[in-house]
């Protein structure tokens, strides 16, 4: 267990370093005048950007040699200081707390909802492959996959906010606000996870231990519950782990349509506005989340599948 943690910690360190360096390098080589972009980001499109950019350049020391800037970043990183956003001037850590925090909540809610929807449907589809439930499940999954998230979001808003009037179309802060964006994401996730689950269940159903469990005389519910779900969950969990990572950053459109202050939104702004500390901080946080999620997936897989515990 300690070894596992240490290895994870080392991995996190490597990820932090590489991600930071990579972002820094990429942001450096981007064409265009960073000061101009920062100025536009700060003062908006009506401002006198060129003049503001001169001030920005001076204020931020963007003229310094880039190794100096990078070492600066590293030195502060060691003290857990991610610097200040070049655009808002607020500490990057504070911004991340709000935006990454909001995104993580959203992602968590989405995953929870998708777990209720996707695998449940997947199990019913997988128990009778090619039955009508399965075909319906396939159709639903394909429809949800072909709708871009903003279209799906709009449809949900129309249904839940306008037609039924149950939920607010946008906003954040309460769990009512979380419901629609989370559902939008969850449906997108469930579209795939239901198929993954369906395939996993269909495989399990054919497995000798599942057949034997039936031959033992167990009622079907017990067979599925005790021998089907756990075994089918193994591939589903590793799939969901990957999804969770895509989710935290892949939600930018959902965030903007639901006016939800997430990290995707922040990242897009930070990149467009050349807010290097913000991009680095975000990428770093995302990298660490990636490490954490993979570790969690490994732990969950090991819990589900005793065969994996041997190797640890």
């Amino acid at each position, binding site marked *: 267990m300690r070894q596992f943690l240490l290895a994870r910690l080392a991995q996190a360190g490597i990820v932090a370093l590489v991600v930071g360096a990579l*972002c820094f390098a990429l942001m450096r080589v981007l064409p265009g005048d960073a000061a101009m972009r920062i100025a536009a980001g700060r003062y908006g499109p009506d401002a006198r950007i060129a003049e503001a950019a001169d001030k920005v350049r001076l204020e931020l020391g963007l003229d310094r040699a880039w190794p100096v800037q990078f070492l600066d970043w590293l030195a502060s990183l060691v003290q857990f200081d991610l610097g200040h956003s070049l655009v808002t001037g607020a500490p990057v850590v504070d911004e991340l707390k709000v935006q990454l925090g909001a995104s993580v909540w959203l992602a968590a809610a989405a995953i929870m909802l998708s777990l209720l929807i996707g695998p449940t449907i997947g199990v019913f589809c997988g128990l009778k492959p090619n039955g009508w439930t399965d075909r319906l499940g396939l159709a639903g999954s394909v429809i949800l*996959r072909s709708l871009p998230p903003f279209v799906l979001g709009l449809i949900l808003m129309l249904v839940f906010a306008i037609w039924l009037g149950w939920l607010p179309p946008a906003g954040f802060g309460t769990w009512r606000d979380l419901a629609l964006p989370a559902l939008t994401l969850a449906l997108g996730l469930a579209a795939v996870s239901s198929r993954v689950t369906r*395939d996993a269940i269909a495989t399990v159903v054919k497995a000798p231990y599942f057949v034997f469990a039936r031959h033992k005389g167990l009622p079907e519910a017990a067979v599925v519950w005790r021998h089907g779900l756990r075994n089918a969950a193994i591939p589903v969990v590793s799939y969901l782990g990957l999804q969770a990572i895509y989710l935290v950053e892949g939600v930018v459109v959902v965030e903007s349509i639901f006016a939800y202050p997430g990290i995707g939104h922040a*990242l*897009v702004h930070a990149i467009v506005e050349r807010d290097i500390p913000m991009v680095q901080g975000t990428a770093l946080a995302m990298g660490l989340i990636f490490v954490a999620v993979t570790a969690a997936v490994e732990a969950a897989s090991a819990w589900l599948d005793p065969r994996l515990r041997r190797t640890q």
Partner: protein
Amino acid sequence: MSTEIASPSLLRPSPVSVTRVIGAALLLALAAFAVLGPWLVQADPAKQDFSASLAPIGGEYLLGADHYGRSLLARLAHGARLSFGMAFLTMLTAAIPGVLLGLAAAWRGGWLEWTLELLANIVLALPGLMLVLLLLAFAPGNFGPLYFGLALTLWVEFYRITRTTTATILKQPHIEAAKLLGFGSGYILRSYVLPSIAPLIATLAAFAMATAIIAISTLSAISVGLQPPTPELGSMIVELLPYYAEAPVHVLLPPILIFLLVLGLQLIAQKDSR
């Protein structure tokens, strides 16, 4: 219990499954629409006619017109060619290196595998959106960085799946037997490993194409996609979206094309039920 007796369905030549035929027909029809459509539909997809703004379906414009009065049929045909072509290209660009690197990592192991694993993990840890946006910053509005950026984030999945599946296959006795019989690595990978992983890769590829199209539309939604007046299915949805209340069917036309593509791919890639 039945392993000892040949299941009778194996006695007959296995019938090509109906769903696959439907899937293939669907894909063929879409491919024809994408390839031939732009030639058959004479209308210029960029020609505007304000008097025909949001013309209804079935009138003078067969599939209606968008808010600028541009023929939606022409735009869909050109858009299908571009979107499907680009998705296909993205998928190939992701799949080929992904599969090859996966095979290499599983076959050679050692430092090569270690390095590739690290690389894959870094790419996974880097937000994909960031990669695409950064690449796009070099040449805004161009296909090149857009599809390259998407491929760069998508190859990892191919790599990971190929590596793990190949690793399990390579442990099986028939590989060992082939080695003892003197077959070279090229032959083993080509004749033994590739056929085994092909169905999985096909499924992944289907998903990757859908992902690519949706990703491009998502990027259009945050105004970093392709530039007007390029007819691309994703950006068409974004353009038409504000008119959802007046012309809901118009908005849904491009998603319907995407739906047919994903459905076709899904049907064709679906695992045999047996």
